């Protein structure tokens, strides 16, 4: 179980995160909805170990994460940019995390093979990143993260730079694979629909403060998320059309 409590961070006098706390069960995905600049990237970076928090704690199954160097946390951060290693092929990129874990060559090849197939990119295995499309790159980035079986994946607007169509494909793909690999994930997005599709648990980050909703219903009902308003708009439109 992931447990985050009282995490705060400020840049100078500017508070960015205020007493963030939540719990997340294994194999669950929590969607955090937030506008840009609400502190969501900072939160993920703290959890991943890229930045330090001023206070608070972060544990996975009871062991402290905040004082562990990022490479030992097994918390993988995925950003909007796929950030593939440009000097490695698709295969090498996906196998990178395994290679540094000194896994046997056979096992490595096998795992990478499985991942390539699951992601549907096996025909691109020998390509370099600059030969791939945006969606393909993002798949490789997922594969690279998932193949090492991390404890948590942190997704920072992972589909933000993709076009609408590719985006839907990727969302479905992620759900499929997350289930397959029993992934625990934290997703931040500004897109309500994406939050709803991907999440099992829901929260909202606003001006550095986190609200965790008890369930999906509460998330939909909360006026600040604007879902009701959106639905109202479409209903009105439908009604007008029907008349």
């Amino acid at each position, binding site marked *: 179980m992931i447990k985050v409590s009282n995490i705060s961070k400020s840049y100078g006098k500017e508070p960015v995160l205020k007493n963030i706390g939540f719990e997340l069960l294994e194999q669950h995905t929590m969607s955090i909805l937030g506008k840009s600049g609400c502190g969501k990237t900072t939160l993920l970076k703290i959890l991943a170990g*890229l930045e330090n928090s001023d206070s608070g704690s972060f544990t996975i199954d009871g062991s402290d994460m905040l004082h562990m160097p*990022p*490479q030992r946390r*097994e*918390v993988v*951060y995925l950003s909007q940019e796929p*950030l593939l290693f440009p000097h490695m092929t698709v295969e090498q990129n996906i196998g*990178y*995390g395994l290679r540094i874990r000194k896994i046997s060559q056979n096992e490595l090849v096998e795992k990478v093979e499985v991942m390539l197939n699951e992601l549907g990119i096996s025909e691109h295995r020998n390509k370099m990143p600059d030969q791939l499309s945006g969606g393909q790159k993002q798949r490789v980035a997922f594969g690279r993260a998932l193949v*090492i079986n991390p404890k948590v994946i942190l997704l920072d607007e992972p589909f933000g730079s993709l076009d609408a169509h590719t985006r839907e494909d990727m969302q479905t793909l992620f759900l499929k694979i997350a289930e397959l690999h029993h992934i625990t994930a934290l997703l931040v997005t500004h897109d309500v629909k994406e939050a709803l599709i991907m999440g099992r648990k829901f929260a909202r980050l606003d001006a550095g403060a986190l609200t965790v909703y008890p369930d999906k219903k509460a998330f939909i009902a909360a006026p600040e998320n604007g879902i009701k308003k959106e639905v109202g708009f479409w209903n009105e439109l439908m009604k007008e059309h029907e008349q």
Partner: protein
Amino acid sequence: MGIKGKFINTTSIILLLPIFGIMYLSFVSQWNYPRLFRDVWTGVNWVSTLSGQNNIMKSLGLSLFISSFVALTTTSTGFVLSRQLSQLKKANVWLSLSYFPYLIAPVVLGVMLQFYFIKFGLNGSVVGVLLAQMLFITPYSTIFFSAFWNKTIHDTVFQAHSLGASGRQVYWQIVLPLAKPWIFIGMFQCFLISWFEYGITQLIGVGKVATLTITTMQWVKEANPHLAAVSACLMVVPTLILLLINQRIFLKQKDLETA
């Protein structure tokens, strides 16, 4: 079209003239006005140089040593320093410190520092010249590499960490491969700056550290354009060959510089 084409062709020819000029001067002797050649071309300047009858070959060796050493040290120092700087909050402000030593004319820098070099017994020695050159080439190298450490590199580095790579692994497996073209070009640039240097080498070296530029100048002062030209050719031709081989890499560098 015709006129403009001519313009480009003329420019091309003009750009070739300096190098043709020095090659020509190295193959003539007894160059009395208005003669262009005496009777035939002569290899005497080259023969005497290559057979070690003058100090040019010695200077070539010394220059190669100094410039290679300076290139290696300044490139590695600049690379490391620029990385550390890039992680600081006010990286830009810190970086601006590098502009001063790099932009002040080397000979004036030499004038300002001569006192200290003498004080520490470094004048007139190869070590002194190495140090003097490093004083302004290291900042250059730092500025050069600071452009490498952009957000994408930092994010990629973090990505590798996040996948479980240790600091050393990230450095060898991610950073260095990505930086390879930069390091290559940076080193070439630093080598050239040192290779081209005259002012501060003359001042701090007290003429004792006779690099190729110093030797060339000495022949010029002696009004012996022919040996000066041989010496000049030895400076230009190696860089030219290196450049022609690596023109594509060099082209890429221009991308880096404007980036």
